[in-house]
């Protein structure tokens, strides 16, 4: 339920229930803060800078497939 709380997916009743509990519970506050930071780190995750280049042969096939898809859409 805590993840749903962080994602804003809980209804008012459940939100209040959690907030009433954590208001007097410093360990819970720290726990939720660290979980929120963890989720934010995943949102901000950049991954590897390097990305493999597409082999020229495949790039040609991709462009042809894309053009064909566009033509079919028209």
């Amino acid at each position, binding site marked *: 339920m805590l993840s749903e709380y962080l994602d804003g997916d809980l209804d008012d009743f459940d939100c209040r229930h959690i907030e009433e509990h954590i208001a007097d519970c410093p360990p819970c506050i720290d726990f939720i803060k660290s979980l929120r930071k963890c989720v934010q780190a*995943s949102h901000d995750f950049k991954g590897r800078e390097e990305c493999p280049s597409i082999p020229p042969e495949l790039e040609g096939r991709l462009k042809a*497939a894309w053009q064909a898809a566009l033509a079919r859409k028209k």
Partner: protein
Amino acid sequence: MESFQHRIFQYTWLMCGQREDAEEVAQDTLLKIFESFDQLQDPERVKAWVFRIAKNYCLMKRRKSVFAPEREYSLDELLPNPAGDSVRTVQVPDTAELPEQQVLRAELNAELERVLRGLPDLYRSVVLLRDVEGLSTAETAEVLDLSEDVVKQRLHRGRLALRKDLAAYLSPVNGEENK
């Protein structure tokens, strides 16, 4: 196309584990997407459609390899130890970026990649789609052929596992405790 390719490659790399496999799967995925683009019924669901294709190619690649059996985490393993988590503490402040904070952020990014790759597949697949790629719970459920309730449960356990492994980077800084 490069940005699109980068997202797919990042996903396949974290799912496959090997660069060579990830490159092959990413290329297969791109080709499949482009060749079957006109089969996309609802443009609003393009992300789910793309990652469903990527996931299927990752699964096909995995079936050719040998993998350790997966097991589910229990919540007891993931929740804080009453005696305190026995980890070193690296405090990462949230304030504007200073050079040393940029270094810490890069360190967190590298550590997060390592931890993500070490997550059991059933959690990694959900965390990657929900938190890294930003798909909704419904989209993630659709891509992975799971119910939304299972997605929510695995997401929470995956996040708890990440939090546990990243605890050194997530500790509150001085003065933040009462915010």
